[in-house]
């Protein structure tokens, strides 16, 4: 079981004294703002990005209020602090999360898997009429396509799905497999809601959400590493969605690669320069092969890096004040983005 409480404390210890209390909320929801995208790199929270997209603000605030009332946490105007002694040891969390990379398609993958399970279960009992428990039309088309393409070998399809799913679930914790399967619907059973599972296991609804997401990420990793072993499940993963940049940033990237200057892009796209700069930072964060040399000279980069080493802060304002006035926020952010990428690629799957 993955506990929301552990995940939250984990995030908060990293963000304490540096960011506002709602920064963790935005990260869990996977907010596509340049601030949040930058934060996850700065504080190595990439794996947890977007793992709880429908987290309600009121739910989050309740958790925070609890920490405050236990005197674990002190909220101030622009940031907050944690009393680490009172909190005690912060437990390791599972390393299976891979939010930054998977958040663009994990929900879609899970829905498709659920609908395919419901469909094949019904077919295996000779039932061809049932109410689909996934309303999303795109998912329904996707599943229909799979069924149609395999019309002549239905038995093979059912067996293949069953075998692949079984093999995957066999690799994760028993309790995780159980929680996952309890949410599936088929001919003779309708899956449990998160709320019902929470009651059954006497945990919070938030714990069920994170546990489900954790298994989903485990499955995706497993399937992606061995596509030959899991051809059917692999076909449920949309291949093109691995880069986690916004659509708008992707357009900007395309223009940069065609040799446009930022000012020219500003004109062509009718966007503010600051927006274009946000895109570039986002791209620098996400796309490893992206070179920032055209925006930051080697000497300036060196200067910024030295400043970062000198001051332990990650607050942009403080860094800017330490540096020569001619160095812009944009340049600092780009250097930070690249720096974090190097650290992140080493740390991304390390346990906290």
């Amino acid at each position, binding site marked *: 079981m993955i506990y929301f409480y552990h995940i939250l404390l984990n995030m908060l210890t990293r963000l304490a004294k540096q960011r506002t209390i709602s920064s963790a909320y935005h990260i869990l929801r996977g907010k596509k703002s340049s601030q949040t995208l930058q934060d996850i790199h700065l504080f190595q929270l990439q794996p947890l990005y977007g793992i709880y997209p429908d987290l309600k603000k009121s739910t989050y605030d309740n958790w925070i209020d609890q920490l405050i009332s236990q005197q674990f946490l002190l909220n101030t105007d622009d940031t907050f602090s944690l009393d680490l002694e009172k909190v005690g040891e912060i437990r390791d969390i599972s390393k299976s999360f891979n939010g930054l990379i998977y958040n663009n398609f994990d929900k879609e993958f899970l829905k498709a898997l659920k609908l395919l399970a419901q469909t094949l279960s019904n077919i*295996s009992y000779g039932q061809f009429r049932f109410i689909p428990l996934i*309303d999303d039309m795109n998912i329904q088309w996707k599943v229909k396509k799979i069924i149609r393409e395999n019309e002549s070998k239905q038995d093979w399809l059912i067996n293949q799905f069953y075998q692949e799913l079984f093999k995957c679930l066999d690799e994760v914790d028993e309790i995780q497999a159980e929680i996952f399967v*309890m949410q599936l619907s088929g001919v003779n059973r309708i899956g449990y809601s998160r709320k*019902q599972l929470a009651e059954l296991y006497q945990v919070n609804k938030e714990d069920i959400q994170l546990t489900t997401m954790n298994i989903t990420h485990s499955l995706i990793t497993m399937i992606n590493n061995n596509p030959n072993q899991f051809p059917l499940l692999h076909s449920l993963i949309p291949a093109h969605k691995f880069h986690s940049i916004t659509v708008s940033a992707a357009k900007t990237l395309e223009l940069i690669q065609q040799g446009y200057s930022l000012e020219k892009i500003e004109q062509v796209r009718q966007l503010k320069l600051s927006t274009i700069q946000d895109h570039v930072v986002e791209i620098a964060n996400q796309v490893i092969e992206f070179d920032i040399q055209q925006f930051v000279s080697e000497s300036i980069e060196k200067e910024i890096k030295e400043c970062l080493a000198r001051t332990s802060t990650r607050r942009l304002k403080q860094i800017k004040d330490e540096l020569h006035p001619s160095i812009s926020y944009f340049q600092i952010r780009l250097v930070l983005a690249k720096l974090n990428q190097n650290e992140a690629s080493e740390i991304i799957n390390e346990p906290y």
Partner: protein
Amino acid sequence: MSHIKPNLEEQLLTHFGFSSFREGQKEIIESVLGGHHTLATLPTGSGKSICYQLPSVINEGLTIVVSPLISLMVDQVKLLKSEGFKRVTALNSLLNFKQKSQIIKNLDQYNLVYCSPEMLQQPAVINRLKHIKVDLFVIDEAHCISQWGHEFRPDYLRLRELIQALEEPTILALSATATPEVQEDIIKSLSVDMKRIIYPMDRINITYNVLHSENQLEKQEQLHTIIKQVDSSTMIYFSSRQMTEQISLQLKQQFPDRQIAYYHGGMDQQDRLLIQQQFMHDQLDIICCTSAFGMGVNKNNIRLVIHYHLPPNLESFIQETGRAGRDGAHCVSALLYSKGDEAIPFQIIESELPEDHEIKQYLSQDRQDTMDFLTETKQRFLEYHSHQLKVNNDISELSIINKLIAFRDKRKKVKIKSVLDMVQWINTEECKRKRLFESYQSNTREAEFECCNSCGFNIYDWELERTHELQSKDNWREILDEMFYRGV
């Protein structure tokens, strides 16, 4: 008509898999296929929708169904699609602009289109419809057209204009709860001659009970006693979302071996769908719900419907109790009443209709201004009535205000009277069954099993044991095996 009779049964079997019609269906279908405007009442749960679904596949042109209940529409479309009907869709406010335009563009490709009354006011929809052959125009929940009805919908009154613009397709007005007075009103509003096909509303397999209590605590004890004795598929209706959660939690603690859940309009879509389907599949014994549940639910074996709160009128009560016993076997309705319970429906009435100052504020606003200060029902009320009044040009603002206030007071009166009728029914010592249906039909049939508590039925003597086994598998490997028919 005799030449199409054998054909109809065949069609029913081919398209819906039923070998015979239920009471009233065939008569209504023959009437509309014969081109007669028809007003029909069929009791809740007797398969009203077949009366237009079958004609929609037989007719060449389009069948339009106006329905005020979006969730019902969505459920119906889902159900039809699951049965293999492709040419069916719904036009309502849940669609985004692109989806809407797509459907409107391809409107002639469908057999059956469900439509909210608001959508039918949109010029794009009206213009498109004028170029399409509409064979049948169905007004579902037709009592909404009547100002005397419990659920008056002002926009229903505009349907007449639309129907005239469509070169008068055959009209079918359907209702499960239309008193003779309301029937007159429907025909008058549509200003066409209509053939009336009226079937009795009473349900002979339901036993009616009212249990009085002094306070909420006593009421909860009554609930506990009944649930303890009746271990079968049960619905409990509440007027508030919060109470569905609260009592469901309480019952779970009292009856740990029963499967209990709650359902209301504030839950997210996925959870609502799961809970609804669990109940349909007998995975839940008891569901604590608001009136949002059950629109499209067609479950056969509900044995007990409890009303924890007072419904706002007898019509809603008849509809909600009508979800029980669709299999024809014995079932029971129990209404739990504590003195003063009517305060809740009175409060709801107040919150549904606009206050004087809201009427004034509404009229002083610009068209573009947001109407955030008004609830949806208040907005709908004001929109329609002020529109109607402004059609007469020479009318002063002050007299518009006064007329709106007069309209509002008239509606309020109707609604308050509905609640008082409900209370009167609760307090009557005469036969509950006779009193419940007397405004709909002159003769109420004898009960098939037990009649009501006035006629000697005592709910505390009634016991039912569980007939279905709840699934017990919780090992994930076994669940998967069973799901995909492996090693079973």
